[in-house]
């Protein structure tokens, strides 16, 4: 069984982004970029399924700038066998990514696609669900456990009130939540080995996908700053303030 794992290059989760003064976007120049954390979890899960003998091949795919090759090399260092870059300078929105991925799925015919649940830059939480819908596949989003046996995926999902278990026939799509696994770190030998693994480059045009954005970003602004930093000396003062000043407790 082949597994396809879409990985996105995003601003590192430790970076606090700044809005550009002209309101056109956020400043990503000279900012540390990394693999979207949920996609690291997705790669880890796929690699574990391969290590268990359930999967035979793990293919990582990224859509975007040529720099996404770095992200793909990371995926290869973490255990993916092969990588595909769909290279474009166009700003990609989730629907466009989902269409590109559908085309890649068409070529690769994986039995399982594991996406991250959410990219931490656009915070969209859409691409996996959109891809599943375009493929007319079942989906199990926000996965915290995945088991594959006899052509069926049994997935425990994190839902609003707790957990839910879903059973679906392959081919199917899973999106990862934080508790699915703890991703490994890439070791130096594996980083070296990753440099020799195959990385193919294709394009939206070759895949026959129109990636024109559907949403126009009119402006990006900074949220109002919260006035914090207030301190109280002790519990008595805290309770007095909550009652008298904030009036939030009786």
């Amino acid at each position, binding site marked *: 069984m082949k597994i396809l794992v879409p990985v996105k290059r995003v601003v590192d989760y430790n970076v606090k982004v700044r809005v550009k003064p002209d309101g056109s976007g956020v400043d990503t120049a000279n900012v540390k970029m990394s693999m979207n954390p949920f996609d690291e979890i997705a790669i880890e899960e796929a690699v574990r399924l391969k290590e268990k003998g359930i999967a035979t091949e793990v293919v990582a795919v990224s859509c975007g700038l040529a720099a996404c090759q770095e992200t793909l090399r990371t995926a290869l260092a973490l255990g993916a066998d092969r990588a595909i870059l769909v290279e474009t300078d166009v700003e990609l929105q989730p*629907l466009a990514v989902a269409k590109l991925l559908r085309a890649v799925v068409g070529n690769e015919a994986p039995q399982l696609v594991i996406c991250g649940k959410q990219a931490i830059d656009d915070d969209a939480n*859409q691409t996996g669900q959109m891809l599943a819908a375009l493929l007319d596949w079942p989906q199990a989003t926000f996965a915290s456990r995945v088991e594959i046996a006899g052509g069926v995926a049994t997935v425990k999902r994190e839902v*609003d*009130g*707790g957990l839910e278990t879903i059973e679906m026939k392959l081919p199917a799509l899973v999106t990862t939540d934080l508790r699915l696994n703890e991703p490994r770190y890439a070791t130096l030998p594996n980083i070296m080995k990753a440099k020799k693994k195959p990385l193919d480059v294709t394009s939206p045009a070759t895949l026959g996908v129109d990636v024109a954005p559907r*949403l126009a970003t*009119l402006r990006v602004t900074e949220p109002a700053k919260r006035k914090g930093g207030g301190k109280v000396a002790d*519990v008595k003062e805290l309770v007095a303030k909550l009652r008298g000043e904030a009036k939030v407790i009786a």
Partner: protein
Amino acid sequence: MAILVIAEHDQQSLKAATLHAITAAGKLGGDVHVLVAGHDARGAADAAAKVAGVASVLLAEAPYLAQPTAENMAANALALLPGAYTHVVAAATGYGKNILPRIAARLDVAQISEVIAIDAPDTFVRPIYAGNAFATVQSKDPVKVLTVRTTAFDAAGAGGSAAVTVVPAAPDTGHAKVIAQEIVKSERPELTSARIVISGGRGLGSGENFKMLEALADKLNAAIGASRAAVDAGYVPNDYQVGQTGKIVAPDLYIAIGISGAIQHLAGMKDSKFIVAINKDPDAPIFQVADYGLVGDLFELVPQLTAELG
């Protein structure tokens, strides 16, 4: 043309989140219709009909909708959509986020996630980068599919008297099956709608120590939340997580205990009216957003606070 709200319900009643989605839908200019897809869901449909601002309730019932999957919910919405609706709206809960992108993809339109303001029927504001920036986006698509952040729109009140129309349920897609649920019913107010939320972090040190927060929550009729670190460590269940990738809350009072205040956590609570932080590290970033910061050992301060509240 009208606006379709996808209801979240437990067959008998509407979830509070849907009341917020109805308010957002009311700002889009058009009649608000609510789709209640379920099994023996007449109770939920009647509840939706009584919500102010609802013009019509569409009830689709089938046994397979007792345990709805995203595939089946999307199919039922899609059956109603062609030509009839300008917008599809749901609350940005785990439930809504699971379903709406499937609808958008099938319509070949973009989805706008976590809308916090509606500037015009085609122009929306949404947070990006863990709420460190707000993007104003305009949709060029014929149908706009949005999930809305419940903290940004008030809950719609009572006073409606819409008709409930039964519509045929779409056939079961047979795609996936819900085979088990572990939903813990709590006596406490719901995290996302509570007036007071008390959250614990890694500083609590164990699940056992969360009992301390429960004693305080009892006094204040508060909901209990947590940081990712506390959930990852297994102190509390996953649905307690507040933050960028968990639940978004904006109560009147948020009390963060033993939480450092990582941007991912702040993303889920910094719109609270008042924030209290209890942390032994005076430099913890949580204090930068706190109205009332209390520096010290939580194991001393929390019991004191509980006692002080009588």
